């Protein structure tokens, strides 16, 4: 009995979370079909691999951003963290550490910076948007000191493995999504939603709000730094400012995917879908021959539309 009612509750919550997503799935599917018509090469293994490799870093940073937004936070330090991840990968992998040491270093730095940021936000009660803004300057500075100009070295076999003609990046994304699903089933994962939706209620129910916030910042840091590692493998070198566009794109993709700013609203699958939409959109505009600047114009319009239409549909549904 107890079990049935709790699964009923679960179903209701999932239905509520999925409500806005059907439209998003349809839009993404439409764009994918358009893309396949314009560029049939995507249906081959090689084309699919290249496409997913363009999408992969955006998907990772969107997850990093959505994780924090679900918890009621936000970060403006995504881009610099991607750059720092790329720089660390490119400087350590050529040295005595080798590839495993490099990967470990990237993960450790992402985890450490994320945890420190989270501790400052949670324990000193400073607004996340400003702390991460200040943090973005510091992280950019560290990246510039480690590698003042693009360079460094990433072993060729790693580049071929991650960004070659095989869909390894896509498989990695599936693995990461699977890990997220498992993490959500743990008390800590559930607490991220709970603390974002209703911090006071969650605190009174015994959720360690501060610890949850620090953990979410740390995980977000790891995801962003790993995106940097992938970008380094893709380009074969490190670049201290390569991550800059990712900050705003990660926010845009998460919001496209229906993740709210106030915490607890939205789903990770929606956010990943949003990043796919943004990535496909940019690719389609490229193949339609839009000049790069017109892409900015179209991107601005589409983002507003994608947020405004579901909001109005919800209002209309509520009024009926």
């Amino acid at each position, binding site marked *: 009995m107890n079990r049935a009612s709790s699964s009923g509750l679960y179903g209701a919550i999932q239905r509520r979370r999925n409500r806005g997503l059907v439209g998003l799935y349809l839009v993404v599917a439409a764009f994918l079909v358009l893309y396949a018509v314009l560029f049939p090469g995507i249906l081959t293994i090689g084309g699919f691999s290249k496409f997913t490799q363009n999408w992969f870093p955006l998907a990772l940073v969107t997850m990093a951003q959505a994780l924090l937004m679900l918890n009621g936070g936000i970060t403006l330090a995504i881009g610099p963290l991607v750059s720092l991840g790329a720089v660390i990968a490119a400087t350590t992998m050529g040295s005595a550490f080798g590839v495993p040491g490099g990967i470990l270093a990237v993960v450790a730095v992402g985890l450490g910076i994320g945890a420190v940021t989270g501790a400052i936000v949670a324990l000193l009660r400073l607004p996340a948007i400003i702390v991460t803004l200040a943090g973005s300057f510091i992280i950019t500075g560290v990246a510039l000191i480690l590698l003042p100009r693009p360079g460094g070295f990433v072993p060729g076999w790693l580049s071929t493995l991650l960004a070659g003609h095989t869909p390894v990046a896509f498989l990695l994304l599936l693995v990461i999504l699977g890990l997220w699903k498992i993490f959500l089933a743990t008390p800590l994962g559930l607490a991220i939603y709970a603390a974002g939706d209703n911090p006071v209620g969650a605190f009174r129910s015994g959720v360690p709000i501060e610890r949850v916030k620090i953990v979410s910042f740390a995980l977000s840091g790891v995801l962003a730094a790993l995106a940097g590692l992938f970008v380094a493998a893709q380009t074969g070198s490190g670049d201290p400012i390569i991550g800059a566009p990712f900050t705003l794109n990660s926010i*845009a993709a998460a919001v496209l995917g229906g993740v709210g700013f106030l915490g607890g609203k939205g789903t990770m699958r929606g956010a990943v879908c949003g990043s796919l939409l943004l990535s496909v959109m940019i690719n389609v505009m490229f193949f339609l021959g839009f000049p790069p600047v017109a892409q*900015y*114009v179209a991107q601005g319009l589409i983002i507003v539309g994608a947020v405004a239409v579901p909001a109005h549909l919800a209002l209309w549904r509520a009024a009926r």
Partner: protein
Amino acid sequence: MMRAKAILRNPPLLTFLLVALVWLIAGLSLRGFGAYGHLRYLLELAAVIGIAAAGQTLVVLMGGIDLSVGAVITVTAILLPLLSPAWDPTGLVGVALVLAIAVGIGLLNGAGATFLQVPPIIMTLAMATFLQGMLVLVAGGSAVTVQNPAVLLLGQSRPLGVPAGVVLWILVSACMLLLIHRMPIGARFLALGANPLAARLSGVSTTRNTLILYALSGFFAGLAGLLLLGMNRQGYVGIGDPYLLTSIAAVVLGGTSILGGRGTYAGTIPGAILLVTTTALITVVNASPGWRSIMFGSLILALLMISGREARR
């Protein structure tokens, strides 16, 4: 003791004291820092940030955020030389046209936030992206030199030894303080920021005030763009980019809550001066770009810990 506590609870005053302290120490320890010319120059730089942050202060007070400030500054700085008609010797027509465009952009932001129900952060972000593309389409990528006499006067002249930009900033500050603390509309902004639902139920129109708010933010960003153009004599794509983050930082350093409903422009004024001063100090130290960036970030973080703490939830 009581007085010390009152000062600690008053963020604008605290920020002012911090500025005074930094200026005093830097003036005594660095040669040339305390010279009248240098301090005047710092104030002139702070005026651009201060005016851009005026609109940002209002938006943040109402619980929103305006990420299009930098883009609007760039738009005005690039469009002014293109839109100033040659038959107008004063240049005021061009100024009016460009300010009207800035207000129009602000109104569009406001319309998106109210009628389309798009969160302000996304609406203004999308607007910034949109403007970035439109600018290059309209103006091409090259820098434009300003000939407009009114703007040059604003950026270059010094009536009684005080830069015109600083005079403009003083005027803007007076208007802002009156608007926030002495006019009904300021009270409505604060009410909407503190508790939107209660404000709406008390008969405060969200739609109207949001539109006015973002129009004002666009106007002040446009004004800052004109001043920057006058000081710089040249407009180019990206000229306004640094002012987006500094305008937000100035607001927060001044003790205004990023959550809305609490704060004052009186804090933003020293906040802007503090930002310019720290940047100047970092330049003096003559470090590599990486170290400079680290110092700037750490300073903002440190200042934030002193002045920008949020109340316990």
